[in-house]
């Protein structure tokens, strides 16, 4: 999949160019022009897409687990908008305010995303849980505020705004080995933490009180998991823009295949998320080539209907929370 997705594109690459690029880079040999494209552009792009998909799916699964709410998703609960605002803040103001640039887009995005999560949780929390309607409402409202603030920044930025906007809309056109490494530095540890706490996440499904009665340090684990989910979201948004539906749809699909136990669910969601995003990016850069469609549009167009289909299917199977088999 990596090879195929890497091969398809505006330059006629073949899988052998990718392999050649890999082997030669490892040996430090000179690359042919096509291998250079493979190494400099295509490979980082595919890897960045995979990492983003994996991270957003993980974040979605973690949010859903902690909130005991199948509709929680980095996009729907406003986290992505908060992160987007933080990233845009860095892009627009870094020239006039150097400390912001030094902090880096992922870090500032994380701060604002965390702020969003805290705000939304605070607004939506009820005794013993976070009800769907309130969660989504709070997420939409907080997200809308941040989106408006982002728009204001974009308007104020004038000549820069087109570039920033296309980054924000979601895409991997800016992929470089540097961005791959940056995203991996956030995503890989997050995967490990998520996997290690998979059983604790299962206990959350007993309700916070039920989990506490089994000895789980509920507040600490909740904070850690929310921070991890927020961190991955922020990292993904700051390198690839706001890409919706992945964090909602992929964990759902994975749950249909594995059941709700997170020890199996999280790994599968991560793998499927990566695969889905690589395919979505492949579509985004080929359907009306040479024009690239922002990948966020592709995920929304495929993700929306797919999600509705999932919802219908699981209802027919009798799942109370979209959990059918």
């Amino acid at each position: 999949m990596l090879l195929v997705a890497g091969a398809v594109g505006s330059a006629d690459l073949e899988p052998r160019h990718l392999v050649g690029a890999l082997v030669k880079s490892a040996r430090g040999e000179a690359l042919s022009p096509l291998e250079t494209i493979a190494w400099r552009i295509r490979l980082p792009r595919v890897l960045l897409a995979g990492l983003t998909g994996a991270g957003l799916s993980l974040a979605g699964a973690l949010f859903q687990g902690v909130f005991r709410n199948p509709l929680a998703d980095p996009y729907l609960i406003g986290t992505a908008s908060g992160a987007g605002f933080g990233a845009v803040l860095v892009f627009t103001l870094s020239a006039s305010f150097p400390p912001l640039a030094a902090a880096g887009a992922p870090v500032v995005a994380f701060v604002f995303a965390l702020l969003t999560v805290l705000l939304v949780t605070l607004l939506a929390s009820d005794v013993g849980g976070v009800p769907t309607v309130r969660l989504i409402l709070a997420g939409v409202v907080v997200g809308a505020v941040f989106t408006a603030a982002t728009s204001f920044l974009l308007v104020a930025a004038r000549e820069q705004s087109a570039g920033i906007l296309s980054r924000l809309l979601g895409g991997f056109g800016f992929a470089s080995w540097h961005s791959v490494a940056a995203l991996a530095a956030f995503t890989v540890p997050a995967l490990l933490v998520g996997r290690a706490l998979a059983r604790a996440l299962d206990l959350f499904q007993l309700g916070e009180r039920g989990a506490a009665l089994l000895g789980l340090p509920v507040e600490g684990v909740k904070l850690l998991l929310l921070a991890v989910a927020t961190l991955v979201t922020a990292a993904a948004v700051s390198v690839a823009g706001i890409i919706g539906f992945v964090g909602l749809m992929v964990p759902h699909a994975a749950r249909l295949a594995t059941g709700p136990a997170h020890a199996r669910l999280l790994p599968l969601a991560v793998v499927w998320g990566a695969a889905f995003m690589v395919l979505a990016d492949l579509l985004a850069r080929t359907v009306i080539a040479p024009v690239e469609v922002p990948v966020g549009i592709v995920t929304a167009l495929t993700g929306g209907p797919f999600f509705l289909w999932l919802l219908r299917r699981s209802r027919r199977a009798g799942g109370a929370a979209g959990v059918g088999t």
Partner: protein
Amino acid sequence: MTRPAGRGGARAEAPAAAGGTARARPEALEAADVVASYPSRSGRPRRPALAGVSLRLGRGEVVGLIGPNGSGKTTLLRLLTRQLAPAAGRVLLGGRPLASFGRFELARHVAVVAQEPEVPVGFTVRETVAMGRAPHMGLLGTPGPEDARAVAVALTATGTLEFADRRIETLSGGERQRAVFARAVAQQPAFLLLDEPTNHLDLRYQVELLALAREQAASGVGVLAVLHDLNLAARACDRLVLLAEGRVAAAGAPAEVLRPDLLAATYRAAVEVLPSDGGPVIVPRF
């Protein structure tokens, strides 16, 4: 009707007596002269929910906690599970203050079947029961053979094995409550606290559940059950503790506690107590 779980029903392979929990097990869970009150919104002092209550739950007995609504039963249960700290008095587990126990350590000794517990949607009964092993595995542990065995024993002992692979939200109310009970059994606690476990259950499941509680007691677990149904309490419990307005109004054998004068005073309702072989029978008088 005789007591549901005659001693013959108690089996030797009872989970609490099994190996792996060879560590010193606390002999009693007790509240000593505890006072508890919830903060009022206006900041004005309120009548305490518990005003000096003492209760000792030993291993192997079933104690029924009865009393009218608002008498402090649930508050006492919250103190005994450290969900609430006493304003005065002490809560001790095996002579040690409850506050000195680690979270998982406490959950290895005390299990709770909550009133209308939330069930984990999508999980099978077996997976749900396995969650009871969390206190033994800790935060990052993975289940071992000991855990698998405890789950199997809990499923068998509670008669939930036959639907172990069904998703828990597809069960009937009675089956679901048994699955929740099985989860508590898998915890292999020394003490089992039940908060109105028979609420919303029909007669058959009420009797079944309390029979299961008696079986646990027969295997050495101390069971404290908050019960509304006095007749059920009279038959299923070795001792009763009657709470009224945050104090113990009476404690002792069912026949000693369930007296018409006491009940009339605490419940503010006229009742008649009829003697029977299985214990006193309480009927309201209109």
